[in-house]
């Protein structure tokens, strides 16, 4: 597992267990992790805090992934957003990308693919 240096990440998911696992994993890799259980909560945090990357679930009560993307546009953020999709969602991977998601990962996702994307977007911050 590749180490991440000086990396701030916001993880958004309504599933507490998953949120806990992600934050542990990224912490173990050396990242600075914050979590939010809904899109609205994430937007609140994003208003005051800067991150390198947001990884978000799509389907959530109280502000879903799409709300989050719209909110980010309002904040004029250029920060990459990765989406977790769970299949059978309201839209396809391509639609998600058109709405502003940089990459889409289908749950349960491939760890290597996540690493690949991290390397693609943050070549400097991923330890070789």
């Amino acid at each position, binding site marked *: 597992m590749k180490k991440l240096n000086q990396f701030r990440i916001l993880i958004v998911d309504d599933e507490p*267990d998953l949120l806990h*696992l992600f934050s542990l*994993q990224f912490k173990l890799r050396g990242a600075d992790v914050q979590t939010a259980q809904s899109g609205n909560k994430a937007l609140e945090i994003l208003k005051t805090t800067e991150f390198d990357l947001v990884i978000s679930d799509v*389907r959530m009560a109280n502000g879903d992934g799409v709300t989050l993307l719209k909110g980010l546009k309002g904040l004029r953020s250029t920060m990459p957003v990765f989406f977790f999709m*769970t*299949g059978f969602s*309201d839209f396809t991977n391509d639609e998600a990308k058109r709405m502003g998601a940089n990459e889409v990962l289908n*749950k349960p996702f491939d*760890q290597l693919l996540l690493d690949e994307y991290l390397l693609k977007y943050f070549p400097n911050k991923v330890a070789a």
Partner: protein
Amino acid sequence: MAVNFGQQFLISILYLVTGWLGLHLAIPPGYATAVFPATGVAMAFILLFGPRVAPAIFVGSFAMNLLNSWPEQFGMASLIAASGIALGAVLQALAGWLLLRKQAQSNVWQRDARAVVGFLLMCGPLASLVNASWSVGILYSLGKIPLDEVAKNWLFWWIGDAVGAMVFTPLLLAIFEKPIREWTHRKTLLVVPSLVLFSMLTFFYVLISQHLNEKIRNEFHQRVKNNAHLVSSYLQRYEIALAGLQHALENRILTREEFASYVEPLHVRLSGIQSLQWNPRVLHKDRAKIEREAQKLGLMNKGFLERDPKSESLIPATERAEYFPILYAEPASRVAELIGYDIASVPSRRETVERAWKTATAIVSPPFDLIQNHSFYGKKGFVWTFPVFANGSRKHFLGIVIGVFRIQEFVMSSLGESMIDEWNFILTDTTASQSEFLFAHSNDPGPKITTYEQLKANVNPTYISSNVIHFAGRTWMMDIYPSKKFFPGHDLTALFIFVIGLILVVLLESLLILTAGRTDLIELKLVQSERMKALGEMAGGIAHEVNNPLAIISQSAILIKTLLTQNNFDSKQIVSTAQLIETTTHRIAKIIKGLRTIARDAENDPMEVVNIDQLVDETLELCRSRLKAHAIELSVGNISPNLTASGRRAQLSQVLINLLNNAFDAVQGKPGARVEVNAIRHHDTIEISVTDSGLGVADAVADKIMEPFFTTKEVGKGTGLGLSIAQGIMRSHNGTLSLDRTSKNTRFVMRIPTVKENKQKKAA
């Protein structure tokens, strides 16, 4: 499906009874059975139970055919025929089974018009080719049907079987088929009108054919009445001819040439004359003289003769007081060797001569067997003896004129050609107390009828016309009955109208199969589509719901791997992560279980004890994510884990999902959207309630809300069947589904008796 002995027996009996009834719908003379319901019986049961009912069909058909030939026509041939026909019935049913088993099993034929028509055509006209060909072939080879009637018999056999199968196969299938949902209501709708129409049609057919039979019968009796005198007339012509001969001989002794020239035209004019003879009375004292003169004239060459009682050969007559030798006989060729034969040598004939002499009247002998019998002329004849007195005075007895007649030939000649074709009859001499059979005439195949008793047993007695013929002291009885040729073609009109009516019954049946219970069918399809819709709506949520725990499991595995690669890992953290995997798999299992519950048609599930807490929990698992995704708050009351009811888990779950979906549709997108599920026990009833944040239902809507097809949803969003189906399910659980009108919010309540009460109900 196994068929036990009792069932086989019942099928046999049903075949026997329906077949027997079918045979009795036949119009005389008996080949035309317009409908043979037994074919439908065989077809329906072989489709229901498979070829293992073949023995029942065989026994039923065999018994019916034997019964039909009992007792007059019973014999080896009828045993063979009955076995052959029974085998044909089995082969036909098997053919139908091979053609239709797939359709019958899949019930496809009950649903689409082409399949229904195809089914009827295959079980009727197509399969019926088998037995029509087979059995008519057998009856022909047994000689029971003549060649020229094969085509007609085949046609009627085929029509009767085809119509019988088309009318009765669907009805019996409807009655006996393992009930599937859409048939429960259709059974009555199909069977009752079809049977009513069939019975009415049969009733009118029987009425009309009885009327026609009556007409035909009257016509027959009228014709007999008009023509029965023909035989007597013919006898009179004989009498006149013989009386003429008698008269001529009374005036003077004729020469042989004169006798021949008198008799010759009679042979031309009248049929059935075996011989006409002149036997003069010869006293013993004149014998030698007469013998000599006769030999001189070349009339006889051996003198007077008689039969030697031992050798039966002709020998010179022994001496007696008087002789009655045959002097002239015409046609000469037929009796040439008998010239000179003294009939007085035979006591009975001597006695006849005496009687004719003493009474001075013509005497007719009892029938006797002709020596020169002929297949056409028959073997029975009679002798008519006329006494001849000199100058007509009874004082001087000259001899006798004898006519020997062939009975069959003259009777047949007396009747016209059309009568010979249209009549069958038996002729009996009934003068003596012991009546004597003369001959029988029949145009029809089958065993020959020779007594009145046989006739009565084989022919409808109302069709028998008994005619008495009196002549010269004898009484003959002529029992006339119509031959098959008598029945004119027009009596088939009623039959064909009947057949057309039966085809209309078949059409009505097809129509009923296709239309009756259509609502049920549509409902069934809608129930399925409702379920599919609910399933489809949930699919997204379920994917989310399953993929999330899968993500948890995969991330846990990754975490465990990561932790293990570290030198000083925290074993507690690994244990807790593994624990997370374990509980997450349970979560997935629960979802799968809920999914299995909703995805199947549970109508025929057995009742089981259902834990209400578990039921609500599993069902909610399917809806939870959908509600969550639309920001609808879901709250579940504190349900006691001890609540149990007797029911079909999947159906109860279906009702609950229906209520939850309705709640979802009602509050989705509205501020403060909330759905609450609770279950409590109220006396002996469990109440499961679904309350949403909507503000109740308007009274006008509330009145109709449980009715089928009532919906307030947009077009395409709801079928209006959800609640009515749900209500049906609750009723089948001895429970109810109702809208709680007292609640401020929209609240639906499912009520179901607790397990205990259900058991008591069963005991009562």
